[in-house]
């Protein structure tokens, strides 16, 4: 009980701390509106000039895009903070505190994510509604699965970032890995639905973890069926768990290296 209590308090403290960055806050939501607006314009132009949009109407495309964007923009700065802690040696001083480093980072990250979601989610929903109206064929019973998928997407994004951040224990410059991962998750899900990609690439993409950050929840919302749900959720769950375990393992082995080699 006390074990869990400390992490909940970390999240609460993190929420309060993040609410203190008012300037970042306003800048963040402004960026969000801008990005969504540009993409909505873009997709509308494309679908008018060319009728075939892989079963996506403009309405569904906009909602796809809004969901994907909410997930991706509501991410924590775990990669950066982990890099700073490991490079700057701060992580060493966390070794002799009675908590799990990864759990601490997660609780802190969740605090950041909650603050961003509080802004981005209502804003995104409002924008979509004003622009194209409610989602065509939306079914309320799909909501729990969609929310679960959004949560998993955000967590997967967190653990992938944490995993890459943890490589700082071994390499001087891991920002290249981060950059590649960012670009891949942009291409496989955020830029456009995977259905728009050439067949072979699409088949590969659905196997990769990157698609389960943004594509999975956006696809689930806009093309909901029990079949899609069963295709998406288990894989998403698997990848999230995998990266959570890998992060912890990488941390433990990094900490061991630290015990021996110092910071």
């Amino acid at each position, binding site marked *: 009980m006390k074990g869990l209590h400390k992490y909940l*308090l970390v999240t609460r403290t993190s929420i309060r*701390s993040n609410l203190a960055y008012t300037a970042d806050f306003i800048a963040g939501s402004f960026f969000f509106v801008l990005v969504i607006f540009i993409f909505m314009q873009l997709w509308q132009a494309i679908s008018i000039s060319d009728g075939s949009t892989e079963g996506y109407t403009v309405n569904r495309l906009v909602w796809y895009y809004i969901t994907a964007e909410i997930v991706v923009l509501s991410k924590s700065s775990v990669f950066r903070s982990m890099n700073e802690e490991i490079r700057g040696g701060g992580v060493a001083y966390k070794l*002799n*505190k009675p908590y799990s480093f990864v759990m601490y980072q997660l609780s802190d990250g969740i605090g950041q994510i909650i603050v961003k979601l509080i802004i981005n989610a209502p804003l995104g929903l409002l924008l979509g509604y004003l622009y194209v109206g409610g989602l065509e064929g939306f079914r309320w019973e799909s909501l729990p699965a969609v929310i679960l998928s959004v949560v998993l997407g955000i967590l997967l994004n967190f653990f992938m970032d944490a995993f890459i951040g943890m490589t700082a224990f071994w390499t001087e410059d891991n920002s290249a890995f981060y950059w590649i991962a960012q670009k891949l998750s942009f291409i496989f899900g955020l830029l456009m639905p995977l259905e728009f990609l050439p067949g072979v690439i699409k088949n590969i993409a659905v196997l990769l973890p990157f698609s389960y950050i943004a594509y999975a929840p956006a696809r689930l919302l806009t093309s909901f069926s029990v079949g899609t749900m069963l295709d998406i959720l288990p894989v998403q769950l698997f990848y999230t768990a995998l990266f959570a375990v890998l992060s912890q393992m990488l941390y433990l082995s990094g900490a061991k290296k630290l*015990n*021996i*080699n*110092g910071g």
Partner: protein
Amino acid sequence: MAGCVTETVIRTEGLRKVFRTKTKKEGLKGSVRALVKPEYREIQAVHGIDLEVGKGELTAFLGPNGAGKSTTIKMLTGILHPTSGEMSVLGLDPRKQRTALSFRIGSVFGQKSQLWFHLPPTDSFRLLGAIYELDKAVLDKRISEVIELFDIKDFIDTPVRKLSLGQRMRCEFAASILHRPEIIFLDEPTIGLDVIVKQSIRELISRLNKEEKTTIFLTSHDIGDVEQLCSRAVIINHGRIVTDSSIKELKYGYLNRKIIDVKYGALTDAGRLDGLNIVKSKGASMKIEVDEKKESIQEIMVRLMQAGNILDVTISDIPMEKIIGDIYRDKGLEEPDAGIGPKSSQQEGKPE
């Protein structure tokens, strides 16, 4: 000193730490070589330290840069694993019982903050209370105690970013003792602070030791910290103990000297300076060593002023390196070269 009949809370025997770092020769060829066949260089950071610290002691661990002070503290707090040797802190093995130990010790490492920058210190206190698994009632009581002890009531609800460095350091200390650590490790607690803040931190440390009976183990290369605070000083150099003595002994034998740096606009009566121990002189600037056992700073200052028109003057403690050099000399030992520990087999122990 360690001789008294008190419970031993820190004990080390032959504690050693060797770091292995990859070396790389210059140029592309060197880079390739380092990849294919890496070469290692061994750094003996801590070179066999035997130490006993009794409960309630306020010990200073002194030494010049790179002496191995931080490395020793990191081993004692479970962050680093020793290469060899034994250690026990509060009867626990820091290497194997790090978490159990973490509930019973506290640490402040230089300027590494544990306060949340955008929140008032109370928020960080509450969080740390939860991390150390204190019950709410216990924590409430404890927070009011530390507020009292460190006199931080006035700014406890102000976001940390708006606090002065001195105020922040007070809160930093308060944060590190919420869980009533039996021992607190302080690595360079006064580094980079101005004189006034330094003084207030020293007061806190001394209050903590007196009122809560906390054992305090601090590192420093500032002689002032030690003179004013500690009852015992352990000086290390190149990973070995050079001397382990009471502050009284040290004070009388080595700390009784000050350096006066003085710069003249015009030196009108140089004769006034006769008999002063001028260790360095360049143009109108000079460095004078004063032995307070024999001379009074005040008298010397008067003479300096009579000698001419002073532009600038500073009085400082003699540097740690000089003290260590003198100790080596007095013990008839060879001072080791920088970088490599002495090969000699003599055991520098505690003078009893």
